């Protein structure tokens, strides 16, 4: 037995009823679609601070998890993961959604130029503003990006449900991941479709992001239209069965 043994103390089940007694080491039957890894492989964790934590500061559960991980098989880290301080999962996701035909270099350069444009615009505003306004103006492009996308996330969505031969748009609560996806999708679609062909993408995108940051602009309007439609169709809410 390589790992240090754990005592099966009766007080465990008494002390922490919320702690899952993770003796169940049958490989979890997760839905793995088209993966070359078998189901017992776990996802890698690339956060280096997590491993540098001192052993004394860990709770019982964390210690157990740590020992358990030593016996588990781990997948390889993907090529886009990094433990760099500049890496942002939201920006990576947005870059991938912007990408066309696998041209990651172009997508990434567009995003970098967008963030630079946002920063420049904010610095210009900051320079020409009075002292009270200067305290309010946000100049960090990453914060603006995150806040803008958060403002664009819808709270409730519409789903077409077939009933009696007709499709009805039924209001439905959305999962977190779906909301983030919709916000990014709307932003990208808006910037691609409603811009003049001579305007470059970074310029348009930075403009839209700044508008969304202040809860204005076409993307926010689209979100509010979705909310209004959901409100209008609230009589159909009982069509939902989940």
């Amino acid at each position, binding site marked *: 037995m390589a790992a240090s043994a754990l005592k099966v103390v009766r007080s465990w089940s008494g002390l922490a009823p919320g702690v899952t007694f993770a003796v169940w080491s049958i490989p979890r039957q997760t839905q793995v679609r088209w993966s070359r890894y078998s189901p017992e492989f776990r996802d890698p964790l690339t956060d280096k601070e997590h491993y540098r934590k001192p052993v004394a500061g860990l709770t019982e559960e964390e210690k157990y998890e740590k020992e*358990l991980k030593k*016996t588990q098989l781990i*997948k390889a880290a993907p090529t886009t993961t990094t433990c760099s301080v500049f890496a942002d999962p939201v920006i990576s996701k947005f870059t991938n959604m912007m990408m066309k035909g696998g041209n990651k270099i172009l997508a990434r350069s567009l995003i970098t130029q967008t963030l630079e444009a946002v920063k420049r615009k904010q610095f210009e505003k900051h320079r020409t503003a009075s002292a009270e306004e200067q305290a309010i103006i946000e100049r960090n492009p990453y914060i603006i990006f995150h806040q803008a996308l958060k403002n664009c996330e819808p709270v409730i969505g519409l789903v077409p449900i077939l009933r009696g031969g007709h499709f009805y748009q039924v209001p439905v609560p959305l999962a977190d991941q779906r909301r983030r996806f919709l916000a990014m999708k709307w932003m990208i679609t808006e910037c691609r479709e409603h811009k003049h062909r001579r305007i470059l993408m970074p310029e348009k995108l930075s403009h839209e992001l700044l508008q969304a940051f202040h809860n204005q602009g076409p993307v926010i309007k689209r979100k509010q239209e979705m909310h209004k439609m959901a409100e209008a169709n609230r009589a159909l809410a009982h069509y939902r069965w989940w």
Partner: protein
Amino acid sequence: MAAPCASLGAVVSCRLFLGSRVILARSKGPWGASAAGLQAGAAPQLSRLIRTTVVTTKKNVPASRHEPYTEDFIKKQVEEFNIGKRHLANMMGEDPETFTQEDVDRAITYLFPSGLFEKRARPVMKHPEQIFPRQRAMQWGEDGRPFHFLFYTGKQAYYSLMHDIYGKILQAESRESQLPPKNLLPANTEVIDLIGSRWLIKEELEEMLVEKLSDQDYVQFIRLLEKLLRSACGPGEQELVRRFRRSVAARSQQQQIPPVQHDAQGAPFSIGQGRRKTAQAEAVVTAQGSGRIQVNGEDYLHYFPVLQDREQLMFPFHFLDRLGKHDVTCTVSGGGRSAQAGALRLAMARALCSFISKDEVEWMRQAGWTRSGLRRMRMCPPAWSRIQSSGIGTALSTAQPLPGMQHQLCLL
């Protein structure tokens, strides 16, 4: 008239003959031993015949009987195996006393080299316990009465095991209710290594009980054992639980760490190899350096103009806080830009493993740096969607690749 009668008679007699043969054959079946025992006049326990069930998968073929493996037969096979092992040791010029099964396997592959792709078809010399399948002993006596009280459940070994475990749970619960509530820590807590061991898998359990089980049976069994573990466990119960656990080695021990070598000046370095898609890379990492990376003779800044690739090269060092402390000289070939970067990342991570502590090696493994990814190109026709939308009538009559089929990265 006579001829048809004769032929009819022949047919009838033939049928009778067949029937009699079948009846005779059947008499050798479950009740056969009892009949034999009655005839022999001996109690069935003295001549315990170990029988297998007859399985016929082909039609129009008479049921091929399995040879009954008597205990004497198995004993003889074991003796022959042991003698054969000693002969083999003599042939190979090794000491017969310390000739293990691995040595036997090696000797057989040496003496009987086989090019067969199917490993199970190659010559093998193993202990008879591994070759002859374990069979259930006779389960009923000469009067036809079964020995075990759970025989009519169909899975007597499984249900009797569940019965025993449940009995132990009830005992443990009654013991717990008798103990005073403040006594949380029992006097002697035995230690079960829950992390370094795993439960038996279904196949292992079936092998142990010599009975076929369903998935639900197996799940119920594991649930019952976990319930036993959760209740107050005495040494007896833990012994029972240990029978159903198998040890699991820590994964970090299975990793191959490249050895540290020394160059002409005595400076230590190590070589790591990595692959990603079709790219192959080799990295020579020196223990002392200033962070220079040379790829195929060029500086890495020129070889990888894209930032993402350079970030990949940087990662193993950044993860271990060793940026700028090692010099790397690498060669890479094949694949595209991203694949080469990934292969180099793997090669450097593996080479770095020789300079770091065991804990850090384990961190690298858990972060996924030391394993090559499995994503590969796959033929994925985009024309599928066109065919499906055009209706059921357009069935695929040809098995050839459709025009416009592209290689796409379809797998995760």
